[in-house]
């Protein structure tokens, strides 16, 4: 058991586990964000709960950040090792003949998502941390006594360039998930009679969730 992360199979397994965790988080994030389309009050209450409940703040949030870092670092380690396994490249290489573009370019789609996370943290996470842990204001309220979350969200999606960047990042997220979802199951050894159905579900997940995030960004831009 000790050397499992030193093996190629073990690294795949660890990569898949972090992917499962991030895919579950994505559903939870989407479920709260979509509330903003239906009810500002419900979105505010859900956001305040997530932003102040100690289990989320001090247990889930650090695990999530570690999960993102681990997924990225392990992805880079695998990419470097894999590139080093073929020092002399083919003069002619026809990857499209046997594999999808998404499966061959996970490192690039992943890198775009990571850059997007930088913007997303700058927009939402860092201001939250500043208000809560530097200013010490855990109320979640504005000066007028209303919750700040919905207003903050709408304010961020006024700028058309920011909305465009968000939409572009979600397209890359979809490309990453189109391979990543089924790949994670294969890595943990799940390839059986349910695999075909799972692949279909994975494709639906990879399109619906990013499309939902795009819808939310556009909805708030035009409203």
């Amino acid at each position: 058991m000790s050397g499992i992360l030193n093996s190629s199979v073990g690294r795949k397994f660890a990569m898949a586990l972090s992917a499962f965790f991030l895919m579950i988080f994505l559903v939870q994030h989407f479920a709260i964000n979509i509330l903003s389309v239906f009810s500002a009050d419900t979105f505010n209450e859900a956001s305040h709960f997530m932003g102040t409940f100690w289990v989320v703040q001090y247990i889930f949030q650090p695990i999530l950040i570690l999960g993102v870092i681990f997924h990225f670092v392990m992805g880079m380690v695998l990419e470097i090792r894999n590139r080093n396994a073929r020092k002399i490249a083919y003069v002619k290489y026809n990857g499209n003949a046997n594999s999808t573009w998404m499966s061959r370019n996970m490192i690039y789609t992943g890198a775009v998502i990571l850059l997007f996370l930088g913007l997303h943290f700058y927009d939402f996470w860092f201001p939250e941390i500043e208000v809560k842990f530097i200013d010490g204001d855990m109320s979640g309220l504005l000066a007028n006594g209303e919750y700040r979350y919905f207003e903050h969200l709408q304010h961020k999606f006024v700028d058309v360039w920011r909305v465009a960047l968000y939409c572009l990042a979600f397209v890359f997220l979809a490309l990453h998930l189109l391979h990543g979802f089924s790949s994670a199951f294969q890595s943990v050894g799940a390839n059986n009679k349910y695999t075909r159905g799972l692949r279909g579900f994975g494709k639906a997940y990879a399109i619906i969730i990013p499309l939902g995030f795009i819808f939310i960004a556009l909805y708030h831009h035009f409203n």
Partner: protein
Amino acid sequence: MKLTLKIWRQKNADAKGQIVEYPIDGIEGDMSFLEMLDILNEDLITKGEEPVAFDHDCREGICGMCSLHINGEPHGPDKGITTCQLHMRMFKDGDTIFIEPFRANAFPVIKDLVVDRSSFDRIQHAGGFISVNTSGNTIDANAIPINKHDADEAFEAATCIGCGACVASCKNSSAMLFVSAKVSQFALLPQGKIEATERVLNMVKQMDEEGFGNCTNTGACEVECPKGISLENIARMNREYLSASLKG
């Protein structure tokens, strides 16, 4: 058929190789790809030039000896075949064909298109066998009842000819399809279960030591495999490995 061949020429393992262009004429669609190379070599010998070195043996798609990366794919543009089964009818008059050796650090070039695939042998030696006591009380394998589904899957895994197309097609130079086929053919049968734990641990360890890359599930290996070895074998090997690691 008139063709332009762009072939990787490399004097020996230490020399620097390069692509060399050869025009060739009079090729028939019914010829195999290796026959086409035979004709080229006869021309080169007649001219007093060094013939192109390439691997071949049975020329029946059985031995897995013929390799070659043809126009960007192992074994060329046709699917489910080895290079000796590739016919020239897959190409058109006037085509340019790139012919390169299988590329991976674990498959070093020996000369021209010939690569050293002994890393596969070392992986096999690490665990691709069963230890049977043949002192006289051995049970006949055919006398042991085996579930039909398991027997079929073990047989399919055992059809792997170890040609290395999986490594050559993989963008990561991963050998997991080969290793998983060898692990699966034993893991599915009662005779193989006895040494299953150490087998998968030792074979994966040897695979990693040989310098093959990590599988990222692109599926290129399954598409290019001349024997249609399925990705299910890689999933099975992953399960076997994780279970063996927990036991170990």
